[in-house]
């Protein structure tokens, strides 16, 4: 597609943990993200969703495959270029640990401005105020320490920091999972407003399917380092095909009958995600799947396109 901004091509990341054993944290992921899109990445802990983000940022070196950002393949061995560091930002999950408790908000926000020389030194203070206004924080936050503000406000400061370098692309790694719902709503609204205003592209990582329904345009679901299903959001919730997707949906505690109707009646959550050291043979989900047949235990299914933009990795489809 013409306006594609990021493509992961058979991305692999294996950690060696001893002789002949490795953790396949990410194992052959193909993913395309278009401009101004919100790509949701869902999965349980240990599914490799955060690892993809960290690999993209250059925190880990991929074992195989390519990352193509803005038409250029990122070099595997070299650190990320300065322009990449400016264009791509990440917001981490834990607002407690992502801001230095010994710095003021002003110091925190001025770092990216200084490093990327966004504005001349004497205008840094004005730029910070402008950014604070963008995330609707009052100007006196400049002199506050992260310890003296609430979790939601801290996350807003993290978002403000990501916005400092005028990025095109932001990775949101569970930005609201440690916040209360009333504050979560506020932060999500802010993120969506910024996305529209600044024409940003997001990768939105979360395990909360309710949040995902309301923020993303496309959803990819991950299980043990592989993507099982990719679809546009509406299709994904209304006609999920992969048994794992259906299991995830059925497990969500919901608050209304209409939502209850979306849940699969046939599937209930069973078992636990296996350790990524001993990935099951064949389809890695077969240990928990109610529809499994002999072929699932032997052959790993291929990704198949079952509808426009709807891909499933399952023998049944």
């Amino acid at each position, binding site marked *: 597609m013409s306006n594609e901004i990021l493509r992961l091509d058979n991305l692999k990341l294996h950690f060696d943990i001893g002789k002949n054993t490795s953790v396949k944290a990410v194992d052959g992921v193909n993913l395309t993200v278009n401009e101004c899109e919100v790509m949701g990445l869902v999965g349980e802990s240990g599914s490799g969703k955060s690892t993809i983000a960290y690999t993209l940022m250059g925190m880990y070196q991929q074992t195989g495959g390519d990352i193509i950002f803005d038409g250029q393949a990122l070099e595997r061995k070299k650190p990320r270029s300065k322009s990449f560091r400016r264009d791509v930002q990440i917001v981490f999950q834990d607002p407690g640990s992502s801001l230095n408790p010994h710095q003021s908000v002003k110091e925190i926000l001025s770092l990216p401005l200084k490093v990327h020389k966004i504005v001349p030194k004497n205008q840094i203070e004005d730029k910070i105020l402008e950014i604070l206004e963008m995330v609707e924080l009052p100007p006196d936050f400049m002199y506050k320490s992260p310890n003296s503000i609430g979790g939601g406000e801290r996350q807003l400061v993290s978002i403000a920091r990501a916005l400092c370098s005028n990025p095109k692309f932001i990775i949101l790694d569970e930005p609201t999972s440690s916040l209360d719902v009333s504050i979560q709503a506020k932060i999500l609204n802010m993120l969506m407003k910024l996305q529209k205003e600044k024409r940003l592209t997001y990768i939105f990582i979360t395990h909360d399917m*309710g949040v995902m329904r309301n923020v993303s345009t496309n959803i990819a679901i991950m299980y043990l380092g592989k993507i099982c299903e990719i679809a546009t959001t509406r299709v994904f919730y209304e006609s999920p095909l992969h048994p794992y997707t259906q299991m995830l949906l059925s497990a969500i505690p919901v608050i209304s009958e*209409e*939502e209850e109707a979306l849940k699969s009646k046939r599937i209930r*959550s069973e078992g636990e995600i296996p350790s990524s050291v001993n990935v099951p043979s064949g389809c890695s989900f077969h240990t928990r799947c109610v529809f499994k047949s002999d072929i699932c235990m032997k052959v790993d299914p291929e990704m198949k396109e079952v509808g426009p933009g709807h891909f499933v990795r399952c023998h049944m489809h």
Partner: protein
Amino acid sequence: MEQQTKAMLSIEDLMIWYKTYRGYAKVVDGISLEVFPGEKVGLVGESGCGKTTTMKAIMQTLPADIIHVPQGEIWFEGQNVLTMTKEQLLKMRRTGVSMISQSPLSALNPVFTVGEQLMDIIKYSGQYSKANKKEMREVALEAISSVMLPDPERIMNSHPHQLSGGMRQRICIAAALVTPKHLLIADEPCSALDVTIQDQIHRMLRVLVEEKQRALVMITHSLGVARELVDRIFIMYGGTIVESCYISDLFSNPSHPYTVGLLECVPRLTGGGLSTGIYGYVPDYINPPKGCRFCPRCSKAMDICREQKPSPVEIAPGHHVACFLYGDRAQEKEAQNKTDYKAHGEGG
């Protein structure tokens, strides 16, 4: 019959203050609640609303040196917990109430096997003679298989770190249910676990509690979890109970402005966009709002809300709301509201 209707746990107008360097933080501000035998009750609120403090007060596990209880009573099975002697308290913890904590990692001691820890709990409950190790072992094995863990023998002999988070929480549940205690307090038992594990554990907890006829107090921040698990719900905000009702009433007729806001904030699977959230933040507990603690964030706040604390009003059988919009003064309020609205309309 008399016994049946008597509450096993009742909290009356309880206040709990914490000492801080700025003065007292009035974290729990006059809450009253009742739990009847065999009932599943949910205590729902956002972080920092005092729900865990309340439950710790029942177990008397709050740090005594920084706690001040200016008023209130906690009655558990006919005894006031706040005036109990050490022996009575120990007896209550051993035989009366059990608790499942939020973090299954720190709830189990890493240096002992799961079996040893379960056996200790069984031993201290005083139900079995100390000599009868074999019988206690049987009970422990049964408890492990009752929480649907495979191969109980192996699990008995494994250390907590050899088990996954979900398995550990299952062990905690087994430990809480192994002795015939009457009340089970679960403090966000699954918030650290994945959603599919969470679902399994909630289903299992529900079945076990019903099977063993325990009363359950479920502390959670998720209305969805409460909907699946409990019969009656208490919504807490800023150290007060703002609404209490049967779970079906909550979703069909949410009444307190906070409850309404909270329900709107939950992102739906059916889509429909995001709500704007509730304006503002949780109150400062050291200098809390003088009247209703929610009023600085409330879109329907009136003059009286800033002056007086609302007391609970029964608006339907078993449905109590602590808000001036309801009860005797409701009509008065409505009139005022209308004028307010008009004024707003003209202004805008």
